[in-house]
């Protein structure tokens, strides 16, 4: 658990816990829409993926695409995740912590996250394109990642270890 003070001002602003909380809440929101409450690793993975522009560019346009096939076709994903996941996960974690502390998300016995209703705005709006894109992607990943099978399978496909 790292204190936010150790980062530069820019990083502190760009990956501030509030935004991270918002992004992970979006992922949980997307997950809840289709597949019920969200496992913690999935929420973290979705947020980490959504934060990377390179991955945002190659994601499929529809949630009906096959996750295994996509991961097979785009081997670059595994490389990108291996390179950036640790650092980004360190950024995402305080966000999830903040949302847990402020009761946006709640954690049950089996490490499943549920979003409190009306905790975040239902629609995604914003003046900055990047911010909107990140939130949309996180929401879509929350819906799409569970289609790949169990959590373990999904994480293996993406080359991430919880």
């Amino acid at each position, binding site marked *: 658990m790292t204190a936010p003070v150790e980062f530069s001002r820019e990083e502190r602003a*760009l990956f501030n816990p509030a935004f991270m909380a918002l992004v992970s*809440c979006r992922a949980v929101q997307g997950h809840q829409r289709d597949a019920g409450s969200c496992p913690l690793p999935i929420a973290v993975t979705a947020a980490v993926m959504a934060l990377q522009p390179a991955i945002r560019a190659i994601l499929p346009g529809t949630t009906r695409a096959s996750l295994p096939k996509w991961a097979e076709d785009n081997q670059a994903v595994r490389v990108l995740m291996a390179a950036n996941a640790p650092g980004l996960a360190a950024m995402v974690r305080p966000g999830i912590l903040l949302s847990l502390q*402020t009761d946006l998300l709640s954690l049950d016995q089996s490490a499943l996250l549920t979003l409190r209703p009306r*905790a975040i705005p239902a629609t995604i709006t914003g003046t900055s394109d990047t911010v909107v894109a990140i939130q949309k992607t996180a929401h879509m990943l929350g819906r799409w990642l569970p289609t790949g099978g169990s959590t373990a399978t999904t994480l293996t496909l993406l080359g991430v270890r919880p």
Partner: protein
Amino acid sequence: MTYQIKSLALYGHRPGQMRVLALNPGRLNIITGDSRTGKTSIWTITDYCMGSSDYPVRAGKVRDYTSIFALQLVRGDQQLFIARSAPENSTTPAPRLCLQFQSAGAPPLTRDDIDFTFPLDAARRLLSEFCGIDRTIRIPAARGTTMSPSIRHALFFCLQAQNEIANPDHLFHSQGHEWRPQAIRDTLPYFLGAVDPEQAIRHARLRQLRTELKNVERQITQVAQAAPAPGQARALIAEAESAGLLPAPVDDTVSLDEALSILASVLTHAPGELGYPDSTDHTALLDRERQELRSRHQQIRARITELRQTLAEESSYLVQARDQRERLASLGLLGTATDGTGQHCPVCDSVVSPAQQTIQAIREDLERLDSDVAFVSDDSPLVQSMIAAEEEQLQQLRAEVVRNREQRQALDAGVREAARYRSQALRAASVQGRISLFLENAARAEHAPPIADTREELNREITDLEEVLGSDTQADRLSSCLSLINQKIATKARTLGLEHSEHPVRLDLRRLSIVADTPRGPVPLSDMGSGENWLGYHIAALLSLHEWFAEQGRPLPRVLVLDQPSQVYFPSDYDGPQVDLAGEDRTSLLRVYQAINDTVSHLDAGFQVIVMEHADLEDDIFRTAVVERWRGGRAALIPPAWIDQGD
């Protein structure tokens, strides 16, 4: 109404030598015999007597012992006797033929009565007429020309030589020769009756109308050329102006008479002197000015670029800052429920910084960013206004440069004009000369009587005719004829028990072949196997065509000559005594003869088939049709007596 062959006559070299081969019109005639008895000569002689341009009779006994070949053709109660002498040196065919009408039932003329008076063309024309071919019809042939059908074209469909009757590649007679396939394609529509005789007349009328139209147009243009053209007068006035012969510019809309008077005044005009302006200082000045303007222009451009860059940098920083601010502002979106003062992580109970502290940090960052953004966004309008001012200066400069260039051009033109003074005097003189010529012509132009302008009517008539002719009724009629004939062919193919006859079979005019449309794609005759199929489809196609010709009364000889259809059942080099067949081959061959006989009897004496055959079958259908049997050297086309005497 058309003809059949009544008899074939040969005259030997000696007086009194005459061999008449009588044939039965309206029936199947079989001439059976051993090899080399002159069976094939029957069709070559027929071809030769019908006005062939070459000498088809093969070298051999027939060539050696015959001096004159003759045919007797029957049409109703008319009889035509054709004779043609064998070539002198056995290569160039005889240029003249003997054609004589006879009363019905008359024997061939005697040797002394034969009188070769018809040149080849005339003989062909008479034969075509005798056959009923309308020589006035022009068939649209390929390559945009037209041709008349003749008896020679009809023979494509009446003969089948030994190498054609079972040929997988060639369906019709002489299809293998150069340009023949095209001729067959062009003439078949006429023989099928798909060519409208009216059409030829219409085509002729159309051609006539077009020539008329051309004539009228030519006359009209001649008249127009003779009259003085106002356009020309105007052009000359413009030239006079540019040559400096006219004091004031003339309006474009002058009438012809006015124009003529103006031109007349030009002739009395003498070109004035042009001044020599001293313009060297001016050019130097202008050049210097231009240099200066250019350098200033470049400086301003550079300044503007710098300013724009500053602006762009600032705005990109603004975008970044805004992005960060937006992310920090996420805090406002979170509907926090508790104040989050808990010191413990809800997940693992470890000590963490309370949420309050985090939120506090975020708020501080936000404020700092906001002040930055305000500071930056303050001076961007200032930069914008500076750029605008510079741009304005640039515009002014551009206008200056343009003015400078225009001045320079005007000066240059003046200089050039001065230098060209001599040539201009010359040019003025030449213009004057042309004007005087034009005026003389105009004065001399007598007003010819006005030509009746019938172009409108002619054009209307031509378009009407083109519509009538262009609606391509011929293609329609042709395909309907062919589809009826295809049905006949398919029926016959089924009775002959041919391969692929269970599928639709059609006569393909483009390929000039029979094509069976199987589910696996079209199968042309050349792709089918077995000589039996080739023979069968040839027989089926030709019989069907002749049935059609007879039913429609088309002008072809009602004769089909087949040379050795049975060859496909014998080995190719077969030359033995056996003339009967056994088993499957025999049944197939009998089926062929049955089909021929059915067609002949169906057409009720309106169709004659002549078959030269090596085989000799015992069955009734064959035996009753045999007219000559040349076996064991006792008989042949050339009587053995001629040969003995010749030696």
